[in-house]
C-alpha cells in the first residue's frame, strides 16, 4: 500500500515538474494580481495595509482554483484514470499522493511568496509571519476541497465555471478565517485561536477530502 503511495507521489511530482507551466501559472497569477492593487487603488501605505489581508487571500484563493481545473483532466484523457480506478488498491492511495504533490508544487510556493507580497502591501513586518502561516494552513484545504469539484467535473468539456460554482461557497470559511487572522494580527491581538480554527478546517479536509475526491472520480468515470 505505502509502496504504491510513494510510486504515485514520485510520478505526480515528475509529471508537474516536466510540465512546469502548471506550476508557474498559479504563482504568476498570485504575484501579478496582488501587484496590481497598489497601481489600481492608491499607493498610500495606510490604505494598502487596510486591504492587504483580503487582497492577498482572495488572490491566493483564485490562484489555487485556477490550478485545479486541469488536475485530473490529462489523466482522464489519457486513460490513466481508468487504470487507477481498476487497480487493486484503494483509489484514495494514489489520489492522496496526487493531492500532496499538487499542493507541494503549487500551494506551498504561494505560502512562500505571501510574506513578500504582504510586505509590498505595506503590512507591518511583525504580521508577515502570521500571513505566511495562515496561507500555509489555508491552501491545503483549498486544494483538497477544490479537488472534489475537479473530480466531479473532470468528464465535462468546459468544467471550469461549474467548478467555480461548486467550490467557491466551500472556500468562504477559509477566506474569512484566513484574512481574519491577518487582520487580527494587524490589530495586535493574539491569533492562536483563529489559526487553530484554520488548522481544524484543514484536519477535516485532509481526513475526508481524499475519500470524497476518489468517490467523485469514480462517479465521473461511470457516465
Amino acid at each position, binding site marked *: 500500500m505505502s509502496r504504491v503511495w510513494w510510486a*504515485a507521489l514520485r510520478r505526480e511530482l515528475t509529471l508537474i515538474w516536466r510540465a512546469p507551466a502548471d506550476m508557474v501559472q498559479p504563482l504568476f497569477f498570485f504575484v501579478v494580481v496582488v501587484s496590481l492593487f497598489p497601481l489600481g487603488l492608491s499607493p498610500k501605505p495606510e490604505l494598502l495595509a487596510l486591504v492587504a489581508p483580503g487582497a492577498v487571500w482572495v488572490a491566493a484563493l483564485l490562484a489555487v482554483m485556477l490550478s485545479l481545473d486541469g488536475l485530473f483532466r490529462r*489523466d482522464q484523457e489519457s*486513460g490513466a484514470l*481508468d*487504470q487507477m480506478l*481498476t487497480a*487493486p488498491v484503494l483509489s484514495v492511495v494514489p489520489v492522496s499522493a496526487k493531492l500532496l504533490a499538487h499542493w507541494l508544487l503549487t500551494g506551498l510556493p504561494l505560502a512562500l511568496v505571501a510574506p513578500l507580497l504582504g510586505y509590498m502591501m505595506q503590512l507591518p513586518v511583525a504580521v508577515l509571519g502570521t500571513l505566511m502561516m495562515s496561507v500555509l494552513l489555508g491552501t491545503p484545504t483549498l486544494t483538497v476541497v477544490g479537488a472534489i469539484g475537479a473530480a466531479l467535473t473532470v468528464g465535462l468539456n468546459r468544467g471550469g465555471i461549474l467548478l467555480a460554482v461548486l467550490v467557491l461557497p466551500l472556500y468562504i470559511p477559509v477566506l474569512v478565517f484566513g484574512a481574519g487572522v491577518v487582520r487580527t494580527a494587524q490589530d495586535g491581538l493574539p491569533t492562536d485561536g483563529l489559526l487553530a480554527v484554520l488548522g481544524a478546517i484543514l484536519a477535516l479536509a485532509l481526513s475526508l477530502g481524499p475519500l470524497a475526491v476518489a468517490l467523485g472520480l469514480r462517479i465521473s468515470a*461511470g*457516465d
Partner: protein
Amino acid sequence: MLFRELAFSAADGEVWQITGANGAGKTTLLRILVGLHGFFEGEVHWRQPLAPSLLYLGHQPGVREELSARENLRYSQALSGQGGDPDAALDAVGLYGFEDVPAGRLSAGQKRRIALARLWLDPKPVWVLDEPFTAIDQDGVTRLDARLRQAAAAGTLVLYTSHHRVGDDVRRLHLGGAGGAR
C-alpha cells in the same frame, strides 16, 4: 438502450471476441464488466475478487506523455501489483531503444505498445482489452495475436473487442441488430 437480454459465461483459457457496429456498446460492455460503468441493470459475477486478477487496457492507452515508456510501465506495475521485468516487456513489443524517450514523442502506435507491454509482464488471470489491435502495424498484430493465444493456452481468460480474429476457436459475442445482443 445499448443492449438487453445479454447473458454469457466465460471460463479460464477462453478467448472472447466482442464485435458489433460502431456505437453498439462494445466499450460500454467492457467498462461494465470491469466495474467502471455503474449505470446498468443486471448482474456481473466474477468467481473471485476481480481487481487483483484483472489486466484492463481501455480505449485510451493510459500512457502519460510527460513520462518515458519505462516510467509509464513501472507505474502501471506499482499500481496493479504486476511483477516482471519492464525492459524485457518493452523489448517484446518492439520498443527496444525507446525506453527513456518521453511518450509524447512517440507515435500513436508506439504509445499503445507501451500499454500492451503489460501483456508481456507476469500474467494476470483475466485480460480485458478494448481494441488492442488499433494503431498497431502488421508485425505488431502478429506478435499480439500470438501472445493472446499463448496466454489463453496457459489458462488466461481473454475478452477483447476488435474486428481481428484470434485463432479459430475464439468465441464471438456480437452486439447490435434489432433484437439487442445475440
